[in-house]
């Protein structure tokens, strides 16, 4: 009985705080994307006008944890299959945040664009029993500034 109460409490806690954090994070992401809009990002490897530029490796990484509610809903999803929408928004946040951090790093280096952008995702905890999962997304690329 106490297990059930604790479980429902954790579920509620996860839902309330998870949703609040997610909404706030998305607001902040959209705001900062507008601020960093002048730093252009491309997956293209070939940098145009290469001779006049100098390239520096920049990276941005983020680790986001799953809340209890999302974890539970995703576990239930395993029975039926289909879109795990609980995790979709989580990974979307992680990817965009990683790119933003990479752009900030590029700005600090005085670059105005990043080329050859790559994204990598890694699961931390790898589904270990009883642990709450977290996901890391790292974005890296070649920041380019005019050669001085």
């Amino acid at each position, binding site marked *: 009985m106490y297990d059930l109460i604790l479980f429902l409490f954790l579920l509620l806690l996860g839902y309330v705080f998870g949703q609040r954090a997610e909404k706030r994070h998305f607001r902040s992401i959209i705001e900062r994307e507008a601020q960093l*809009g002048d730093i252009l990002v491309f997956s293209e490897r070939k940098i145009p006008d290469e001779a006049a530029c100098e390239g520096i490796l920049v990276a941005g990484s983020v680790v986001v944890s799953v809340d209890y509610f999302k974890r539970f809903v995703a576990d239930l999803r395993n029975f039926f299959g289909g879109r795990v929408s609980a995790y979709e928004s989580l990974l979307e946040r992680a990817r965009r945040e990683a790119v933003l951090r990479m752009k900030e790093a590029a700005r600090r280096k005085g670059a105005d*664009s990043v080329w050859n952008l790559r994204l990598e995702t890694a699961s931390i905890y790898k589904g270990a029993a009883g642990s709450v999962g977290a996901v890391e997304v790292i974005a890296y690329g070649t920041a380019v500034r005019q050669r001085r």
Partner: protein
Amino acid sequence: MADYENRPPPEGINVSPTHPLKDFALLVGGISALVVVAVLALSLLAGQLARHIPFAHERALAGQLGRWLPAEPVSAVERQRRQYLQALAERLAQGMEMPPEMTLTVHYSAQPTINALATLGGHIVVFQGLIDTLPSENALAMVLAHEIAHVRHRHPVVAMGRGFAVLLAVASLSGVGDGSLQQWLGGIGMLPVLSFSRAQEEEADAAALQAVLRTYGHVGDAAAFFEHVARAPLAREPLAIFSSHPGHAERIARIRDFAARHSQVDTPPVALPAFMKGD
């Protein structure tokens, strides 16, 4: 460089638009429904299998019921009451096509509980509280025949099989409750688990009416017990065992209907022996 630009993609294209709570409700609802259906199917299947347990095995299993059944009475009058009930049960059983290996053991309890119950191994318990509410032997015979019919149709062992399947399923799904399962297997708490379904109650009622009709030639007073229960305020006597029984009004109506269809011989009901009346 001026040829290049980053157009912001539209917001929300990577996320399904379902509300998380709706997703949650659908998933929990779906899984609960599946579990309920599976447990129900399992319990019905277990009931079907339990029907085929030989009665001798059921009796052996019922040996563990010992502490639940009232002890053999010590006073002479209570022994006399028990013997009377046993004799009445055997008389009724003659008209009920009992299988030869099936035995009935009637226990008497001086408790004021207004109830009678049938359990594993052909054990039937009749409480003094019940006898005190009944106007005649015919009324007592109806209740007794109802309990015998439960035994005759193997209802206790079917109920046990169902209860066992549900308990086992719940225990293995939740991963807890090993202790309670062992307790149950040990016979503790076996009696409260045995509750009969509505269909079983109706089957027992029908068989009991036939038996009373064969024994007495009429079914006068058969509804007496249910009429009493219907009149009695529920708060006074918690009739927990009766929660699965069909509505009393419905039962009384069915018994009256049966009585009307079978030519009512104008024989007065047989009175209960004087020693059956409580102190």
